[in-house]
């Protein structure tokens, strides 16, 4: 069965791009894009599928983690985006992966000091994504701080937290769970706060 694409590619992808831009500009805020639903048995949800349809084309090599890979996904990507699928993670512009994939020490490009933009954007499928929880985000785009719970994903957050040490080189991430997405660009400071119960500040 062929995966569905946007009904109105020009305007639907524009709308979804603006949500991605908003997510990247205000890290930690949840966006709920309107995107076509992949088939029930698919390994990725509509938010991630919508991001792929919006960003990928012939110019963007995509690397796919084995746990998400399938002939149906490849066929859908080939038909709707034409993006080349690469086995060479270091040459990829986008990577499709889960929070566990990064634990396997895959080599992604984080750009150079002169061209830090020539770097990977991670597109991550999560089981859990809430705009509150133990992970504290701060930095550009965040007035004070924001919080996230992404389930069991310490390795992923450790990797994204390491961005600050390599800045301006680094990897940018779009985290998705079913119909929701959130972005953590390399400029974001990521800390674990372990605040199970947050004190109530107001009387």
């Amino acid at each position: 069965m062929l995966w569905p694409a946007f009904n109105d590619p020009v305007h639907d992808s524009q709308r979804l791009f603006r949500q991605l831009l908003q997510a990247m500009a205000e890290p930690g805020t949840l966006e709920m894009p309107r995107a076509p639903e992949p088939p029930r048995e698919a390994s990725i949800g509509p938010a991630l599928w919508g991001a792929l349809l919006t960003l990928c084309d012939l110019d963007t090599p995509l690397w796919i983690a084995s746990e998400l890979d399938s002939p149906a996904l490849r066929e859908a990507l080939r038909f709707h985006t034409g993006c080349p699928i690469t086995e060479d993670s270091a040459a990829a512009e986008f990577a499709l992966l889960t929070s566990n994939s990064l634990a396997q020490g895959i080599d992604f490009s984080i750009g150079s000091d002169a061209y830090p933009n020539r770097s990977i954007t991670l597109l991550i499928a999560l089981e859990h994504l809430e705009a509150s929880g133990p992970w504290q985000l701060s930095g550009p785009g965040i007035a004070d701080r924001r919080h996230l719970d992404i389930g069991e994903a310490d390795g992923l957050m450790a990797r994204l937290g390491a961005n600050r040490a390599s800045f301006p080189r680094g990897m940018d991430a779009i985290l998705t769970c079913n119909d929701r997405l959130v972005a953590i660009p390399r400029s974001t400071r990521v800390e674990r706060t372990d605040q199970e119960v947050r004190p109530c500040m107001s009387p």
Partner: protein
Amino acid sequence: MNGYNFAYLDEQTKRMIRRALLKAVAIPGYQVPFGGREMPMPYGWGTGGMQLTASILGADDVLKVIDQGADDTTNAVSIRAFFERVAGVETTTATAAADVIQTRHRIPETPLEPGQILVFQVPIPEPLRFIEPSEQETRLMHALEEYGVMHVKLYEDIARYGHIATTYAYPVKVDGRYVTDPSPIPKFDNPKLHMSDALMLFGAGREKRLYAIPPHTRVESLDFEDHPFEIQAWDEHCALCGSDHSFLDEVITDDVGSRMFVCSDTDYCLLRRGEVA
């Protein structure tokens, strides 16, 4: 739509610019090269800003275009008419009613709101260009954070004039890392870049560079402890609305050289006059 793509650019070009914009936002103040397209207007007419606007604009957006603070200059009118024609979008002169504001040389006086996007037209994106003509060298200077020359240039001003003479395109440092050209806005507008509620995108058409300042981002104007950054100030008030806090233009009112000072932001001035009346 008259044989045009929506918002003029083809979808592949928009995707390329959109991907570059996401990287620009992720690396605040860093200039991302992009494969710009020719626009049906000459360079110097804001083709860089227009390409960004064309890539982000949606059919439901309300667009405002300003040039030196005014909505009614030839440049602003042409760009507004262009997007009305190729995207069918609604346009406005009211800052608060706009989703996307394309601007040349000013930031509106009315504070921007969360969700609004300000798109700057940039003639020369590289703040180090007048010190170092080589692109390769300036890229290296940014990579190594070698910004001493910029301070030397500003300090030479102080030695010569007793103050920093730069009043437009006054360089800023974004989130403590990249020295960035805020485009030729008056330094009066620099404080509005700091911790803004709105996203700010910058497009240079000739040099094919784009960069961004996300909302809620630290933006400092370069200065010295003994010569802190200061904005322009006027003894006069706006002759039309009485404002004592806007950026003022001196205009000649008749052919015998009479002069008055008025707000450069025409929408802001009209709004204030409406409220006063």
